[in-house]
């Protein structure tokens, strides 16, 4: 080993001045810190704590908060999912199972059921990032506790059928009604276990109500 390259241990340079300057600078910086903390202390508006069960009515979760996966449905009750399965492939632990079918009228592949296993989901957001149609979203609904974990496997779509774009091209509402059929939270290819339990699908935090404008 080259001795000349090693860092020699040297004493810090001897300073003969700056004793009081150091004290004044130190006190100033300490007082500055105290000023900042006192501002927090004297302004209760800076408190960020949420008093959760009490403020349940007014609590608004943040945009980036990731909890329940949802497939947002538009005002007509239709979503934009084409059942392309990119989210299913993006999912690192197989929590998503997209079940597709051949549309009876259109003859094209369309979404039948979108099954999501919340019990194995790690909320990594990979499915949302992967979706080419931006039709997935992790919303802030965190009150998802249930007494049976099989209730945590459920279906996200409210109908089996093509996307809203395809559906809205059909002008006649009666014609349109033939293209889709309703799906609920717990009925699957085989009925999901939640259907067998007392209460059916209604036990889950806030089941998405089937808002149908046209039936």
């Amino acid at each position, binding site marked *: 080993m080259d001795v000349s390259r090693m860092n020699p241990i040297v004493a810090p340079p001897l300073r003969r001045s700056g004793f009081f300057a150091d004290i004044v600078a130190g006190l100033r910086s300490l007082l500055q*810190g105290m000023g900042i903390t006192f501002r927090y*202390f004297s302004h209760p508006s800076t*408190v960020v704590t949420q008093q959760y069960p009490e403020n349940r009515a007014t609590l608004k979760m943040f945009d980036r908060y990731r909890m329940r996966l949802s497939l947002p449905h538009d005002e007509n009750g239709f979503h934009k999912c084409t059942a392309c399965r990119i989210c299913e492939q993006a999912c690192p632990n197989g929590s998503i199972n997209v079940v597709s079918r051949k549309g009876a009228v259109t003859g094209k592949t369309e979404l039948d059921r979108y099954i999501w296993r919340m019990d194995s989901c790690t909320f990594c957001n990979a499915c949302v990032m992967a979706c080419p149609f931006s039709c997935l979203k992790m919303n802030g609904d965190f009150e998802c506790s249930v007494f049976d974990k099989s209730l945590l496997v459920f279906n996200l779509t409210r109908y089996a059928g093509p996307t809203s774009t395809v559906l809205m091209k059909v002008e006649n509402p009666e014609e349109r009604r033939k293209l889709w059929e309703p799906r609920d939270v717990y009925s699957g290819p085989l009925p999901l276990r939640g259907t067998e339990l007392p209460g059916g699908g209604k036990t889950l935090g806030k089941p998405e109500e089937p808002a149908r404008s046209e039936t």
Partner: protein
Amino acid sequence: MGSGWETTTLAERAAEAMPGSLLAGAGYVLLAVVGASLFVAVLGMALIYAERKVAAHFQCRLGPMRVGPHGIFQTVADTIKLLFKEDIVPAQSDRVLHLAAPFFSMMATLLALVALPMSPIVQVADMNIGVLYITAVTGFGVLGVLLAGWSSNNKWSLLGAMRAGAQIISYEVSATMSLLVVVLFSGSMQLSRIVESQADGWWIWRAPVVGVVAFVIFLIASLAEISRTPFDLPEGESELTAGFHTEYSGLRFAMFFLAEFVNMFVVSAMATTLFLGGWMPFHIGGVESFNAVMDLLPPGAWFALKSAAVVFLIMWFRWTFPRLRVDQLMKLEWKVLLPIGFVNLFAAATAVVFGWYFFPF
């Protein structure tokens, strides 16, 4: 100069009542024990609750909110929980010392409370060497810490205890140096006399500049002595787990914890007594109408308010300042506080000799 306040101590009143009968004596002793433990327990719980609330608001939090309105019963619940927890003694420890150590710490704190004048009528004993007594007795607390660290047979405990020893011994010098300033000005070591000497004004401003400097040095040095942040190296959790009380649990841990918080009160009470006029209302010599307004508040309330202010200041320090490194700690004491303390003491002596302060008698 008489201040017009009648002062008695609890010890004097007990001595008057005692000769009556043996039963009365025993009753007084019992009353004293119950009173002291109640005072310490309530004070400790109140301080811990205050600390948690103050800390929370300094950090944009709310602190305890659930047990009782605004969580005021949180510390009561915590204390009961601590009392019922298992008291674990490590197998390889020095059992007797391990069990005894918390009592040494607690005793030092309790002994210091004896001499504090909390109001003209609430003071347990008024000895003529009060300042010296308190300095000596608070130094006794390090024995408990050292014993705890040694007997635990744990490297963190031992390191923490050694740090505590070095720290307390170093900073006692500066603390005493700043106490001497007030002793010089008031010409007495008796705490009640020191309080009465501040009837015309508190020493922090009556002794120009030297009073403030002494107060600041005393505050810094006593913070180090009671191992409060920013001088909490003996129990620095990021380096030493919990320092000297790593191996303690249950009631004995509660003892250390309580001693720490009551020590904080002792320091604030000392700062109040020596620099902020103790139980004396805020008076300016000669301004009678102003003094009369200030007299409306009873002396006990003045003492409580002043102590609470200093306690708040100490908590404010704790939640603002970062912890010092060991070498910085020693540098601060021996290279900064001690020289300034010496110069300050000399200046104070000069001021006393020539009467260069407000309202010299």
